[in-house]
Structures are given as C-alpha cells and as structure tokens.
C-alpha cells in the first residue's frame, strides 16, 4: 500500500535554530498537509498546499513557518527560529482530492526543542 514517508523521525534542536522537516507524499496525490500534535493533545491543522501554493493555514502557522515543494516529490515544513513550544510531533499528510478521499498520514517527525 502506498504511504507517506517523513524524515527525520526524531530531531532535537536548540531554541532559535532553523528546522526543516521533510515529507514524501503519495505519488499521485495533489493535496498536501502538515499537522502537529503536542504531547498528550489533539492533532491540529497547520497548513494545506495545492498547486504549489498554500490553500489554507491555521493561526498556528505564523511567519516562522513556511512550506515548500522544491521538486516533484518532496514537501517540506520549515520552522525558522524554533521555540520551546514548537516541541511536538509533526505529521505530513496527502490526499488525491479535497472532498471525498482519504487523507493519508505519515509516521510523524518528533521535534524536541531544548
């Protein structure tokens, strides 16, 4: 079964450092998402991406966050200057379309900011 893959699985970074989380969505999917889950809390929507631009973003997705699809396969989330409260599991997801299909999630990248 096709799957969304994410790297790294775990990253520890110093506060103020830049972090890039990488994702390879399912190959024929067109819609891409980032979600995050702070330990013990629910999964929160960050951003959706389609046709090489952001479709929607949440209040969490402020100026320190950016997304990019640098080539035909990768989809990245960059956090410019990490804060302690950015520590969370970050999930990448993809779907074939907006309204009717399953959204598939990766295994997540666990980010710890110290």
């Amino acid at each position, binding site marked *: 079964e096709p799957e969304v893959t994410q790297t790294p699985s775990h990253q520890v970074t110093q506060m103020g450092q830049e972090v890039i989380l990488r994702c390879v969505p399912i190959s024929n999917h067109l819609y891409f998402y980032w979600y995050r889950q702070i330990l013990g809390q629910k999964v929160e929507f960050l951003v959706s991406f389609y046709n090489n631009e952001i479709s929607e973003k949440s209040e969490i997705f402020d100026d320190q966050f950016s997304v990019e699809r640098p080539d035909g396969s990768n989809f990245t989330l960059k956090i410019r200057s990490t804060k302690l409260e950015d520590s969370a599991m970050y999930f990448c997801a993809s779907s074939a379309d907006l309204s009717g299909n399953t959204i598939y*999630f*990766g295994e*997540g990248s666990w980010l710890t900011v110290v």
Partner: protein
Amino acid sequence: SQQGEEDPQALSIQEGENATMNCSYKTSINNLQWYRQNSGRGLVHLILIRSNEREKHSGRLRVTLDTSKKSSSLLITASRAADTASYFCAVSTDKLIFGTGTRLQVFP
C-alpha cells in the same frame, strides 16, 4: 468550530467485549474519517464514511453517521489487546479537523 469531540475520553474493557466511541461535530461535512494512533506513532486511517452514508463496515469495525444529529460512532467488536490505542474522529471539509480522541485500553 467544526471540530469533532469524542466521548468517552477513556475506555477500558476486557478482550472480547465491544468498544463504542462517539463523535460529535458542529458544521456540515463532506465526510468523516476515523483514525487510530498507537502511543507515539503515526495516524492510521481506519474508515471513511461519506455524508450521504449512514453505516459502514470494515472487518470488526462498524461506523455510523447521523448528519441530523451531527454525530458518528465507531464500534469495535470482539476487541483484542492489540486494539489498545487512541481513536480519533476527523471531520472533513477542505481539510481534516480532529477531535480530542478516545483512549481505548483492552485488557487480556
């Protein structure tokens, strides 16, 4: 907010028993999806039910959707210890909005 809210927050049962988890939401949806998450792991898609469907089955899973009440339920029949996980409903419009989840513990 269109978020799903689940109840109960936590559920403990013995192997072989059925587990029922409920989800309520607030707005119109395209579909509703249920996911499972083992501790510290990724989100595994279980089942999708469209807004024009009322019931769907997949193996030991049965999902119902009542759009008039804006609610859904997930039933796991004949539970196993391996079903121990958190279960989330997620309502879908142009993105998924997740509920708070139900932590299911199945004792052998």
